[in-house]
């Protein structure tokens, strides 16, 4: 019997990739948050698809229901995540007045210095010089 599993999975995968690309390419933090939600939902879709069209032969109902339950868990978690994320975003906006992620570069590696380091400066004269 032909199932719709493959189609669902492909759809989910596309959604997941869109979400992932969104996180990478979008500069606005809100959009980035949305992209993450998209990714989570792609996973949800996968769960549900597998639950509805099990791959494993002889999967019990209980097992099948787990996929659906998982989706609920994820929805709840995603809500919590969104709450925390927005709170953080507000905190950022308050201090920096921006939600563009590429403007947040206070934290970064120092600029490398490629010139040869000068000879170590004499730090302190020899011990005995100080006392004699």
């Amino acid at each position: 019997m032909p199932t719709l599993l493959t189609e669902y999975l492909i759809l989910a995968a596309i959604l997941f990739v869109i979400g992932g690309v969104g996180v990478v390419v979008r500069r606005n933090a809100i959009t980035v948050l949305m992209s993450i939600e998209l990714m989570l939902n792609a996973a949800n879709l996968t769960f549900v698809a597998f639950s509805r069209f099990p791959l494993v032969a002889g999967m019990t109902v209980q097992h099948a229901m787990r996929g659906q339950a998982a989706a609920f868990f994820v929805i709840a978690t995603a809500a919590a995540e969104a709450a925390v994320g927005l709170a953080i975003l507000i905190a950022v906006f308050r201090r920096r007045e921006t939600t563009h992620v590429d403007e947040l570069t206070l934290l970064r590696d120092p600029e490398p210095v490629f010139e040869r380091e000068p000879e170590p400066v004499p730090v302190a004269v020899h011990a005995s010089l100080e006392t004699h």
Partner: protein
Amino acid sequence: MPVGTYNWQDMAALAPAIILVVGGCTLLLTEVALKSAGRGYQAGLSVFFAVIAGLAAFSQLASPGRSLFGGFARLDAFGAATALIICLALALTSLVGQSFLREQASERGEFHALAQFAAAGMILLADATDLIMLFIALEVMSLATYALTAYLRSSARPAEAALKYFVLGSFSSAVLLYGTALAYGAAGSTKLADIAAAVGSGAHTPLLIAALALVGAGFLFKVAAVPFHMWAPDVYQGAPTPVTGFMAAGVKTAAFAALLRTLYEAFGQRALALGAHGHGWYVAVAWAAILTMVFGNLLAIVQRSVKRMLAYSSIAHAGYVLVAVAVGAFGGEARAAATQAAIYYLLAYTVTVIGAFTVVAALEKRGGPEIDDDTRYDGLAQRDPALAFVMAVFMISLAGIPPTAGFVAKLFVFRAALDVGAVGLAVVGVLSAVAGLYYYLRVVVVMYMKPAPESAPAAPRRMVSMSFGLALAAIAVLALGIAPHSLHQFAHPAALLNP
């Protein structure tokens, strides 16, 4: 086995996590009831709950191992040992954090409450044997740590760090979740045991491999393994320093525990012969370990801030634990040795790194310069010999020089690696450790060999609790280095991870 069967004994097995949840709630409630004055008790309370949870975990150390809630979680020595490390990290963080919070005028109960919740999530992460359960525990832990990272509202950097952490963390959670979904599809279940059966049967292997890759990527992100490490330096540097210590110790420990469980319990059987190339995950983890050790140590060299250097050092140390993880692929005795080595390494790293970050915290003054450079450490040995000494001990331990915990930990790891003949891993490990020596020693250099600057800003006053915590950490580092056998009972049964 019916899905929903559980009983109170199973619940009792989760006592450490439950105690911490209760603790977190209590702290939140007291926050409501009390006003600003005399907040010190909150730290005390937090330590109290951490100790109680730790005792509960300790009592489980000798546990023979038992499945809980029909296979969603597991009570065993491994989990108990991990929980113990996490409780230790929590207790130390609470102990030393109070002084920092007072200096930053941010004494509020949420800090400790969030830490308690995060720790609870970590413990659950270590106990979980179901991927969904793992995901939820991971989220509990992560959400709490995101919040902790943004805790200091007075400065711009914590918020930025939190945002970066949040975005990338959620991204990796999503990846992990997607992997979980694929695993569910292939095995028809999210329980590790069922996945193991599916792996053993050989059905739907490509799907399982994809699931393994995605789940593994999620955990590698959490432990900050190269190339999933990009978030770590910025977040570690930006977060409030005690939080950084807690993250470096606790999050890493919990994530490694989960990684070990997933890899060994679900994918342990064909560890050397799974995947398109038939290499198994051994090669992937080994390469991750090599990259992590090399890049972590390499990039730490050029850092000018001690805190950021410690962040890179944390990445490098993840590499050493990954060596142990990879070695466990060989199963049998090697797996026991690897698990033991990983647990011991995480313990040693926990005490050392919390100590080190505490020293960093001890030198942070409210309204001080935003960019922390090394000048604060110049000539510290003359201004504050005790602080300089413990910092030197922590640096020596991180560098892996005897007689400190760091040395014994590395000994365990390399010993495990050489048992399976992974000489290459060990050699890369020791060579990158040489680079590591350089930057750890630089801290000792500035503390001991540079003169104190003329106008050195006076260090903030340290509370007794912080000094006590530092002393405790330093003594633990030395004790673990000199008499590691005292922890024999700790680390050995912990190795009895369910294969």
